């Protein structure tokens, strides 16, 4: 190998703009300077504007009395509560619709996604029609549809639709009976927890035994029986210590029971149905991403069909499914902010809407609202990174 002769005399340095490290440094310094100048400009303008409008900055307003009512509150709230309390109420409402939306969207999405791959031609086509319809219509339009075109046109409280004389649906929402727990009910959650712990232990023991001896019990079914059966048994043994508070029509509205406001129903339905169409596509492509050779190899080992699915296809499909699935969950939670368009009291509607309008503290309110969503996003993406690192294929 020939050595390239050194053309330059020793001690000669290239000019600094040809030196990659120095160039990078200068470039980055310029960037920092530009960004800093931009921020100073914005902050200066903002201060001028705030002074001109007579708005004092700071988070002191959070302790002031809010003075407005909220339609759905999970914790105690009156119009004498503080603005800080409205933030908590809004956050809880966002998390409620987000959590229930994630649950419903997953269930519908997995069913439709699997139906999309069904050997039954009609079922596959129906699932496809579902996906193509709901994916291609804006979510806000779907929310409006459910709220204004469906739920707002329901009959009034007097002519509500009744389901078995305990559940009522009318223009004011869905009225469900509320379980009232009497003394002695505490035993049932305790049994449930014990059953869950026992099933986890059973599954672990079963796996160890399977690896050691090759024998296995149907642990899944036994656990299911434990988790459902034991609390039921205790429930019956203690004489069913539950009474139901059934909603009743008094005057123009129902009293008692649990009231689910139509805003919640519309938002929840639209979010679940819309997101489910995306989840279904993710599930379908995840299952299809598994090479057919995997199934064939598993069959060649004479694994029964059920185990082929459970031990070979599903674990590999989940690796493909979970990252886009979590980002859909994140989208659902962010999309729940559309609540403000129909007046469901979520974080954006209550806090970035009413509170902002009443106090005028735009910067603080918007910053707090954005911070909430950013923290949720960061937590989810931290989970994603952890999950990806855990399940990533180790190649070469």
């Amino acid at each position, binding site marked *: 190998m020939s050595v390239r002769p050194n053309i330059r005399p020793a001690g000669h340095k290239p000019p600094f703009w040809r030196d990659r490290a120095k160039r990078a440094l200068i470039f*980055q310094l310029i960037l920092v300077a530009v960004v800093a100048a931009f921020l100073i400009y914005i902050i200066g303008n903002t201060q001028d504007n705030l002074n001109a409008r007579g708005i004092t900055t700071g988070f002191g307003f959070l302790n002031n009395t809010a003075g407005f009512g909220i339609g759905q509150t999970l914790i105690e709230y009156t119009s004498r509560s503080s603005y800080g309390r409205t933030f908590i109420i809004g956050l809880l409402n966002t998390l409620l619709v987000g959590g229930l939306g994630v649950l419903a969207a997953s269930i519908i999405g997995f069913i439709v996604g699997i139906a999309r791959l069904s050997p039954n031609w009609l079922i596959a086509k129906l699932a496809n029609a579902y996906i193509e*319809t709901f994916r*291609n*219509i804006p979510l806000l339009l779907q929310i*409006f549809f459910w709220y204004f*075109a469906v739920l707002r*046109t329901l009959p009034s409280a007097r002519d509500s639709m009744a389901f078995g004389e305990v559940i009522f649906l009318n223009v004011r929402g869905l009225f469900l009976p509320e379980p009232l727990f009497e003394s002695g009910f505490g035993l049932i959650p305790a049994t449930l927890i014990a059953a869950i712990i026992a099933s986890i232990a059973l599954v672990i023991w079963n796996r160890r035994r399977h690896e050691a001896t090759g024998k296995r019990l149907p642990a899944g079914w036994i656990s299911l029986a434990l988790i459902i059966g034991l609390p039921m048994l205790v429930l019956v043994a203690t004489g069913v210590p539950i009474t139901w508070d059934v909603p009743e029509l008094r005057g123009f509205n129902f009293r008692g029971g649990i009231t689910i406001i139509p805003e919640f129903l519309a938002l929840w339905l639209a979010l679940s149905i819309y997101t489910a169409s995306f989840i279904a596509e993710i599930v379908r492509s995840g299952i299809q991403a598994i090479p057919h050779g995997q199934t064939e190899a598993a069959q060649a080992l004479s694994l029964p069909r059920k185990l082929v699915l459970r031990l070979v296809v599903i674990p590999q499909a989940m690796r493909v499914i979970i990252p886009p699935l979590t980002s859909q969950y994140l989208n659902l939670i962010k999309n729940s902010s559309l609540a*403000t368009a129909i007046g469901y009291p979520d974080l954006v509607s209550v806090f970035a809407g009413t509170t*902002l309008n009443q106090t005028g503290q735009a910067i603080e309110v918007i910053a707090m*609202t954005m911070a909430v969503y950013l923290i949720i996003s960061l937590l989810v993406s931290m989970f994603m990174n952890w999950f990806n690192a855990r399940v990533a294929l180790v190649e070469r």
Partner: protein
Amino acid sequence: MIHNKEVIPAQPAPKGTIGPIAWLRGNLFNGPINSLFTLLGLYVLYLLVVPTIQWAFIDADWVGTSREDCSRVGACWVFVNARFNQFMYGLYPSSEYWRANIVFGMFAAIIAWMVIPRLPFKRWVAVFALLAFPVIAYVLLHGGYFDLPRVSTHRWGGLMLTLLLATVGMVGALPIGIVLALGRRSNMPIVKSFCVIFIEFWRGVPLITILFMASVMLPLFLPTGMGVDRLVRALIGLTLFQSAYMAEVIRGGLQAIPKGQEEAAAALGMTYWKRMGLIVMPQALKMMIPGIVNTFISLFKDTTLVMIIGLFDLLGIVQAALSDSRWLGFSLEGYVFAAFVFWIFCFSMSRYSQYLERKLNTGHKR
């Protein structure tokens, strides 16, 4: 060796494996559970389709001028008919519709030219679309030049505004997205962290808070007394939001290019911008097109959110028309019409993106 010189003539397929009945048996009624599912599916289909057709076509009223022309048994398309121009152009003065129509027509022609593979001079059409068309569209729509009467932006609306928001947001987001994606892959720590923070910030918050921010906080950021048009505020918010998503799509495309390509270009002595502009980007861009179309579809659907900050896009104008006291109670018709329009656009775009994916995939199939 035994062999037979006679060629056995081809036999027809066994009976019961071809024809519609065999197809039915194979795809719909193979096994009791599948048959049950088929019957269930047919029942669901019957429950959904028959009343819909009854409502939307058979019992519907199509012609007329007021709500008295509707029987209220089926859909009242008279409402949509009466409001059609508003749904398309918003509050744009009707004497000036021709200006919007020219812009619509040019836009459609450009799209068609870019989409149909056989047509030549794609590069020049793209240059025209990016440089000349926005100016022409602005002059035509806004007016104030060449004796065209001014139409201020608060009168813009309907489908016109939806298309405008989506296209401008997209075209504005593309260059920002490219810069952000390159910055995120850069070796310079400050540039990289700046880009990561920028991208993750916009991706982490809902669009609606960005629009709120653009409409409430942007006026605070600018010097006192300097107002910004409401439409421009929404566009700034949409563009920044979209650029973060675009950056991630572009980053995905860049990652798909083998590192050897860039290294080979560097070995030829190319500078960074030449490596990117001549070697990496042209290859990556091809792979990115389906992803870009997909983000465009979501942007197109997300433009409906501007109605929350008081702009009248297609959904906003439909919603406004529904509260007209002369036409109360036709919300279903209004929403179905808007949904249909959105669906046509989004569905054809997603089909196009799938077609591109298939077309571009051929070379890389393993």
